[in-house]
């Protein structure tokens, strides 16, 4: 097989090469299409991430509440439910099964559903990390916060969560990268993201290798960008003195 990168410059309708590779006046080339697909991938991922972070922080926190076995059990159930069923299957449940129970859900577009599914799925994993982050904090920190007169909510808000989130930045980084990769399930509910582009474009152009290479490259670029952003966040959030203190040897 020989390379044929020209295919990205072709118009999606007429299959003729377009000057400059970007379509004009409503025409779109495969390059246009791929970039817009990348946009969808990024949007799905970021929104899911937002949802997963909020839910994950909440559920993870609930699972560490002292003296509330009921709430802790509820949090555990949440985590077990959403992490033990494959994402694709969960998405299907959202798309086809939930609307049979709540007909109103039928009007919800696939984009929202995939954000819900991916967000809930990832929230279970983030909840697990948040819980372990809080639990690795010295027990004295919780006592210290309470002893200052903080309410439980304030203890979490001002002391436990800020410290726990700093600890779990590395696993959160992998989880964020995972969201980008997992966002590919969105094609199953008709969101025109990168994987759907890859499947459709390789079918139309019969240039599978080139299409897959380009799409893989975009995924790698996305993952790398996330990795850099999180490294930056980690650096910004780094607590002065803490690393130096633990490096000293005895």
């Amino acid at each position, binding site marked *: 097989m020989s390379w044929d990168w020209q295919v990205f410059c072709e118009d999606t309708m007429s299959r003729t090469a377009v000057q400059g590779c970007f379509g004009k006046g409503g025409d779109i080339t495969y390059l246009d299409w791929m970039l817009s697909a990348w946009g969808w991938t990024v949007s799905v991922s970021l929104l899911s991430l937002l949802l997963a972070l909020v839910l994950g922080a909440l559920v993870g926190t609930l699972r560490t509440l002292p*003296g509330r076995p009921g709430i802790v059990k509820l949090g555990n159930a949440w985590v077990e439910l959403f992490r033990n069923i494959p994402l694709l299957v969960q998405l299907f449940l959202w798309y086809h099964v939930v609307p049979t129970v709540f007909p109103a859900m039928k009007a919800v577009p696939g984009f929202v559903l995939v954000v819900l599914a991916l967000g809930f799925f990832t929230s279970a994993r983030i909840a697990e990390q948040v819980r372990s982050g809080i639990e690795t904090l*010295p027990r004295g920190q919780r*006592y*210290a916060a*309470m002893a200052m*007169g903080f309410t439980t909510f304030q203890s979490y808000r001002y002391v436990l969560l800020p*410290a726990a989130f700093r600890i779990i930045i590395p696993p959160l980084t992998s989880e964020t990268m995972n969201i980008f990769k997992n966002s590919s399930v969105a094609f199953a509910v008709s969101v025109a993201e990168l994987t759907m582009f890859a499947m459709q474009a390789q079918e139309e152009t019969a240039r599978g290798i080139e299409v897959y290479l380009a799409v893989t490259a975009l995924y790698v670029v996305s993952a790398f960008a996330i990795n850099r952003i999180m490294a930056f966040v980690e650096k910004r959030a780094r*607590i002065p*003195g*803490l690393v130096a203190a633990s490096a000293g040897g005895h």
Partner: protein
Amino acid sequence: MIELKNVSKWYGNYQVLTDCSTRINKGEVVVVCGPSGSGKSTLIKTINALEPIQQGEIWVDRVPVHDPATNLPKLRSHVGMVFQHFELFPHLSVTENLTIAQIKVLGRSADEAKQRGLKMLDRVGLMAHKDKFPGQLSGGQQQRVAIARALSMDPIVMLFDEPTSALDPEMVGEVLDVMVGLAHEGMTMMCVTHEMGFARKVSNRVIFMDVGGKILEDCTRDEFFNHPEERQTRTKDFLNKILQH
């Protein structure tokens, strides 16, 4: 000021506190000692309800701590506590450590809180470190900040849980000095410690606990150190062990 009446506490089936009763008057300095696992930390934590109790009554400044209806955060804001491992908030600067609870709990303005906090920081001799983070301070310095943090809440009583046992030997002195100063100023204090020098110098009373959370001795400093013949064997054993070297 503080009164414990027949306090008992269990972890599951294991009894950590057995029928503990004592009272601490305003201005008194009480030292609690005893072997490891005897429930000293647990006892002191029950006083501001960091650990719930299953039986008995605890009164702090006429507030019933054991009563479920008591506003615990409010009570705790008046009870200063200093921990073995300092427990400064590592992600906040020294100044923020000193002010955050004043602002969020006592509702003081940022300015007022800062003023009060820095005054206390100055008192423990660490003004120069106000913008550092806890991780950048030595153990002794961290513990002094922790004391200043508790003081800046204007506590009516201070609880200490082995405040020097995690420190390098040369830093013990600087923390004890601050505590001696507090005692001399008339602060009501309850202090778990094995520093018998400190107990000798400033305590009014000594409580000795034994495994199972029983109060074996509760007597004046003088009785405790100078009349060993009146003490129980268990107490004498313990004192021998920790005073020998």
